[in-house]
Every structure is written in C-alpha cells, then in structure tokens.
C-alpha cells in the first residue's frame, strides 16, 4: 500500500516536472515571451470558466432538490416556522444574487476575453450606477434586518408567565436537569455545594429545594411554553435543540435562559421521520473538551396529560437520597448560611 502511494507520488512529480520543462522549452523555441497576450490558453480559460459555472449550478440545483429531506430538519417548535420563513426568504434573495452575479462575471470573462484588434472601453466611473447598487442592497438589507429583529425580540423576549421552568446544567460531558417540583419554585443552588451525588449543588437549607427532582431524561409538554434556566459547571457549553431551532450558551458564573413552545411530541416525530428510535436531544454546541462530540441529553416531548402524569410520578431528590439529605443538614446548616450572605 505504502509502496503504491510512493510510486504514485513519484510519478505525479515526474509528470509535473515534464509539463514544466516541456512548456518552458516550447515557449523558448517559439521565442514567445511569457507576457504575450495572444495565447490559446486565454480562450480555454474563458470557456472553462463558463463550463465550470454551469456544471456547478447543475450540481447545486440537483443536490439541493434531491437531498432536501436529508438536510432540512422537521420543525418542532412554534417559532421554528417563523425563523425558517426568514431563512428561506434570505435564501431566495442571496441565491438569486449569487446566480446572477456569477453568470455575469463568467460571461464577461468569456465575452471580453483578449483580442488583439479590440481595445477595452475606458470607463472609470458612473455615479448613477454606483448609487443604484449601493441603495438597492441597502433597502433589501433594511427589510431583512427589520423582519429579523421583530422575530428576534419575540424569541429572546421574556417567557410567558405560565411557562414550565426547568433548570439545565451542563458539565463535562453531560447535562443534568432539575424540575421545581409541586411548589413550582427551584430551590437555591451553590457551586460550592457540588459533589459526586449532588451534581448541581442544590442548597437544601432552602425549603423550596426540598421537592425539586432531577429525572434521567428531560420531559416537556407539547403546546406549552417551556423555559430553560441554563447553567454551566465548568466550561462554556451550549444547549442546542436543532429541531426546535433553539440554542443558548451555558456559561459558568452567568445563568442564561431560553424558551420555546414545542409543537410535536416525540411519538409524532417518530411517525414523521419513520424512525422508531427517534429522540429529541440537547446536543452541546460549544467546544468543551475531549468528549464534546458525545455530550447530549434526551428530551421527551409528550402530550400535556402525559407530562402531568409523569411529573406526578417523580420522586423528589431528597426522597431518593435520604441519607445524603440527613448528612447535609447536619454538616452544612451553618456553613450555608454564611455562603449565601
């Protein structure tokens, strides 16, 4: 194998050298100065440009059409179609500009390739034209920006009051989630209380933390606003839900948040994609170390009644870890009071 690669390399080097020497010698023999503009290659290059362009367009159109299902993800949140509409309008605008400018450019290359008898047209400026192609992009951009900002403010604005609040904590290399429990209030947490068992550092001296529970998978209800309160324990991570078109970084020392309204349950997605193992997953989308690529967490979207049922079945963290809680209260009651000062 190595020998073959070596031989191929040597052969290609020899070919390069031969091309080099033969064209050099040929041009010396013809007494052609390198700058001679009358060069058959000039036309060849101009034609190649046009050919390249059309072949590329054909491949782009074919692939974009043929593989649409593969690269366009189903949309599973309320704002996703709005974002996608802006995305595809931007696509229409930019793709048109792309096609038109490339056609014009390669066509000019072919149409105005060097001819000895012709002289180029001395045309240093045209203010009207320049103003036109300054103002038109500006207007189009104002439209795209205005549209984008309205949507941006909606999506990034405050979450509705009735949103389901869930805390998401990223750490190397997994995610943890904490629900507020029946009292609908997340208890305090402090990074100094984190240990192997209490992985998000819940402060159990805060009474609202007593009913908090931490499930193995995140469950959220379809059709209700969901607010993620996002934290990171060690380095920056990013909560990315591609099907929801939602993303927010998780930053140590600075809580962030994002909210959305799921519109498809996991079961519905399994049907739509024809993949019975389908799951929504939070994937980490900010480089965070060795196992960045495998840092993910399953999110199950279900009908609201299923969600409520599931929630009611969950045991609080201290119920699952009574010994830890007892020790905690014994050891930390005074320390924590000072920590929280």
């Amino acid at each position, binding site marked *: 194998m190595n020998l073959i690669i070596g031989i191929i390399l040597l052969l290609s080097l020899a070919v390069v050298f031969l091309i080099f020497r033969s064209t050099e010698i040929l041009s010396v023999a013809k007494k052609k100065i390198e700058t001679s503009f009358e060069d058959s290659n000039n036309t060849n290059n101009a034609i190649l440009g046009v050919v390249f362009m059309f072949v590329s367009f054909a491949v782009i159109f074919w692939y974009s059409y043929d593989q649409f299902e593969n690269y366009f993800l189903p949309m599973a949140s309320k704002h996703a179609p709005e974002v996608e509409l802006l995305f595809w309008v931007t696509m229409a605008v930019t793709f048109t500009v792309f096609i038109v400018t490339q056609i014009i450019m390669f066509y000019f290359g072919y149409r105005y390739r*060097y001819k000895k008898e012709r002289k180029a047209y001395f045309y240093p400026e045209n203010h009207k034209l320049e103003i036109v192609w300054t103002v038109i992009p500006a207007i189009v951009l104002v439209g795209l920006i205005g549209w984008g900002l309205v949507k941006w403010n909606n999506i990034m604005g405050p979450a509705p009051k009735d949103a389901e609040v869930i805390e998401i904590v990223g750490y190397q290399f997994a995610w943890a989630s904490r629900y507020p429990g029946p009292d609908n209030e997340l208890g305090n947490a402090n990074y100094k209380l984190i240990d192997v068992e209490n992985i998000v550092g819940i402060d159990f001296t805060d009474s609202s933390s007593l009913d908090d529970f931490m499930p193995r998978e995140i469950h959220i209800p379809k059709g209700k606003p969901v607010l993620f309160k996002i934290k990171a324990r060690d380095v920056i991570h990013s909560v990315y839900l591609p099907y929801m078109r939602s993303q927010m970084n998780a930053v140590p020392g600075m809580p962030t948040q994002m909210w959305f309204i799921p519109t498809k349950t996991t079961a519905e997605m399994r049907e739509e994609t024809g993949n019975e193992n389908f799951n929504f997953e939070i994937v980490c989308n900010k480089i965070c170390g060795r196992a960045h690529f495998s840092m993910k967490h399953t999110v199950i979207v279900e009908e609201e009644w299923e969600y409520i049922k599931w929630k009611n079945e969950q045991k609080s963290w201290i119920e699952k870890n009574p010994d830890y809680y007892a020790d905690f209260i014994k050891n930390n009651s005074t320390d924590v009071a000072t920590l929280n000062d």
Partner: protein
Amino acid sequence: MEITKTSTKPKVQEHDHHDDHHEQSFITKYIFSEDHKMIAKQFLITGIFWAIIGGAMSSLFRIQLGFPDMDLTALSPIIGNWLTPQGKIDPEVYLALITMHGTIMVFFVLTAGLSGTFSNFLIPLQIGARDMASGFLNMLSYWFFFLSSIVMFISIFVEGGPASGGWTIYPPLSALPQAVSGSGMGMTLWLVSMALFIVSALLGALNYITTVINLRTEGMTFFRMPLTIWAFLVTAILGVLSFPVLLSAALLLIMDRSFGTSFYLSDIYIAGEALSNQGGSAILFQHLFWFLGHPEVYIVILPSLGITSEIIATCSRKPIFGYRAMVYSIFGIGVLSFVVWAHHMFISGMNPFLGSVFTILTLIIAVPSAVKAFNYIATLWRGNIVFTPAMLFSIGLVSFFISGGLTGLFLGNSVVDINLHDTYFVVAHFHIVMGSASFFGLFAGVYHWFPKMFGRMMNRTLGYVHFWVTFIGAYLVFFPLHYIGIAGFPRRYYSFTNFETGRIESFIDLNTFVSFAAIITFAVQFLFLFNFFYSIYRGRRAPKNPWNSNTIEWTTPVEPGHGNWPGAIPKVERWPYDYSKPGSEKDFIPQDVPLSKTPESNMPDDSSR
C-alpha cells in the same frame, strides 16, 4: 535609515550612487536584512512553511471526519503518539489539530504571510520610496514573527499537546488545564507566541502607516495611490487599533491561568473541586477577543481585495471601475469592522438588545462589500481580459467573495443565527469568504509580482492547472458544508457516531467526499510550490514590465537593488489606471508619463485623477 526624504529632487540625487555600490554580507543581505524586499520574501517563505503545516493538519482531521474507520498506524512515524491504539486520531488531538489549523491559517499565513509579504514588498515600490520608513523596525517585525513562529512550532510537540480550545480560545476551557490537556503547557506557549506575534504585527503596521503617509514620491497624492496601497493602509490601521486589545485579553488570560486572578472565571466546579474564583466574566473575554477577531477578518481579506483590484484592472486592460467608491468602501469596511464584533456572540448569553444593535451594524457592512463586488464585475465589462494565472485567481477571489459574503446575511441576522450558530454553516461561510478568498488573493499576488520579486517568470501552464484544481477543489470542499450546517451539525465534533439517534447516516458520504476533495486540493498546492521554488532558479528571465502595468514598481530594474531605483525616483504624473485610454496608441500609460507627453489621449478631467 538614511533615506527618509525623497520628496525633493536634489536630496534624491545625493543618494543615488550610495545605493548600488556596496556588497552586503550574507547575513545582512539574507538574514538580518533591512531591505523591505528581502523582508517581504522572508515573510512569504515563512508563511508558505506555515501554510503547509496548517494544510497538513486539516488533511489529518478531514481523514478523521471523512474516513473515521481508517487505520492510520502507517502514519505513526510522523504523528506518533497522536494515535489511539486502534490507529485513530485521539479526540483531544483532533481538537488540537483544528485549533492549531485555525490559529496558523488566520494569524501566521493570512495575516503575517499575506499582509507581511505584500505590504512590505509593494508599499515602497508602488508609492515610490527607497525603503520603509524604518528598515530596522521592519527587520524587528520579521524577527518577532520568527520568534513567535518558533514558540508556536514548539508548542505542537510539548507534553499534553498544543492548545486545543479552538482558535478563539474561550476561557474557562483555555484557562483550566483540568478541562483539556491542551490548556496546559500548550496554551501557555500559544499565549506567549501570540504576544510576540502582536508585537510583530504592531511594528509592521506602524511602519506601513508611516511609510504611506510620509514617503510618497513627488506627485503621488493620496488619490493617485493604487488600491493595493489603500488596502494595506487601512489594514495596518485596523491592526494598530485592534491587536493591542487581543494582547490585553491574552494578558488577563495569562493572569487567570498563572496568578490566580478571576477576570474570566467564576463559580467553577471542575475535576471534583470547586475553584475559589468568583466575580469574573467568561463573556468579557469574548468581547475582547472579537474586538480584535472581527477586524482581523478584514485584516485578512482587505489586502487580498487590494491586490485583486490592481490585477483585475491590469489584466482587463481597463481602469478599475469607481476608484473613489473603492477607496471609500475600503474605509467604510474598516470603520464598520470595529462595531460588529458581537455578531459572533448572539447566543453567548449577552443581552438580546445588544444582539439587535449588532445585527443592524453587521448588515450595514454588507453594503460597502457589495459595492466592491459590483465594481469588480463592472471592471470586467467591455474589458480586454487576459487570463494570466494571477487574473484567474483574482476572478476566483471575486467568486468566493460573493458566495461567501452572501451567506453572511444569514449569520449576521441574529434570529437566523440562533439555529446556524457554531454549525458547519459557519465553517462553510468563513472558509469561503475569508479563507479561500484571502488565499486566492495571496496566490494572485505571488503570480503577479513574482517577476518583480525574483526577476523570473513562473510557469503559466502549471499556474493554470494549479488554479483550476484549487478553485474547483475549494468549492467542492466548502460548498457542501452549507448543507451539513443547515441540518444542524455542530462544528468541532470529533465524530458524529454519537450524534442524535437516527441521523448518524445522514452525511457520511458527503463527509467522505469533502475529505477526499480537501486532500486532493491540498496535494495540488505542491504543484504551486514546485513552480514557485523551481522558477526562482530556473524560470524564464522576466522582462521589465511583463504585464504592461501602469504602477511605478515596474519602472525599477528587473531585479531592483537596495534603494529600488538606481537613479532618481520617478515623479508620478497621473493616476494608476490609465488603461486603454481613448486616443492613446498603447493600451497603458504608466504613472510616470507626464500629461504633456500624451496630448492625444488627455481628457478634461485628467487633472482631478
């Protein structure tokens, strides 16, 4: 440097005999040279060295992405313990490779290798100066770069590997050795190297600015400068204003890493231990980094745009369309580049209102960029186009600049960026608009000014082959990444086998294809290297003005000596774009030809140019 005033004639002549007649020793001529042309070549060769390393690294991680099951044991003599026992690249090595690839390409190749080469080479030659304002600082600039290169090179081989937190080195990942092994010694060396690099960049940039402002020859008014010089000038100003901010960001990071401060660190629990750092802000680093990082993008692309402006005009045998609009758009891009940085941080957790502000500012910068693209195309219209390899690469640049610039409209719009942020769409965008486009500017510049640098011609046929394979190859590598990005695949992933259940299969073939194209494209660059080095010694002798160009560097001897012009420096009589002027017999009138000698082609508004 004794040659500082060249604007008055008598003084110029005093120096004339001085410049040709002393033999320099090997060391002062080739190593510690103060001649801008030699320094330019030093930057170029060092840049080429780094480009090979950076390109080889990308081939390695593309193998991991495209052929994840390949057994690389055969490569172990070269990359040794970077492999797992199964013969695959280790995940942390993968991160180190992408980090170093980015750092090397952005800073060492496309900043130092591009701006360092052409600003140094062309500024004195095109404005009519005997050398830079300070030859000594110029020499220091190269040697600081050299030192920085050595430190960065050493960092590749240290225990724990080189920096591996991405080229943006966001803390806390880059601040805590517990987080990833590359954040140990490798990161320290990265920071030291970058500090040296910034010193080099500053020395160079101050020199470029001073030279352009003070050493223009008689008649070379600002609006008679070729667009290359305008681009280098604005690039240098951007560098002077933004690199110090990176230095401060790096210094604070060094403090956090080594001296227990908490500028960027707060509330961290890592490796079974809660750190005592509190009150710092990880976002602060991002603001500081991108305050350099975004202008840096333009530091990388502007020189290329300048170079291609010059080449497209020369090879279309036409004046550049809208010279003043080009100058103003360079300035517009330069100014705006300082107020768009936070578009890299839309979802970093900063206030969404800031996101709105930066969306507006970001999309405004698209306007001067669009003007530039349109002006290039208008220059081609009714030209008489000569496809030299340099011209082909320039057209390739315009193609990339358009296709990569357009995808910026998606990423600059904050709401669309939510879903595309940090996906392969971003990778596609910047590799086309700043990676490929800048590289093409670099190639165009080398092909075009090679005769002036080495007094010989490069082989054209090899140049054509090099262009077509690279052009098609670059599109084949980077265009497909858009689809992978739209599908929501994150960048900086070692593998996608663990990625969302059910989507493992989606792009295996496409990734293999991209890797294949990337490796071929990289391999073809050796064709260029062969052509480059072989032509230095064995290329055909160049004529004095091979491209029939107007700018005054072509009035120097074929191989200009120290001081550039053996006699007096030519006086500049006109703007640099009098190509195919009506009435003129030739299709070019060099800048040193007075209007009084060309009555047949003079125009009423000539004096305003």
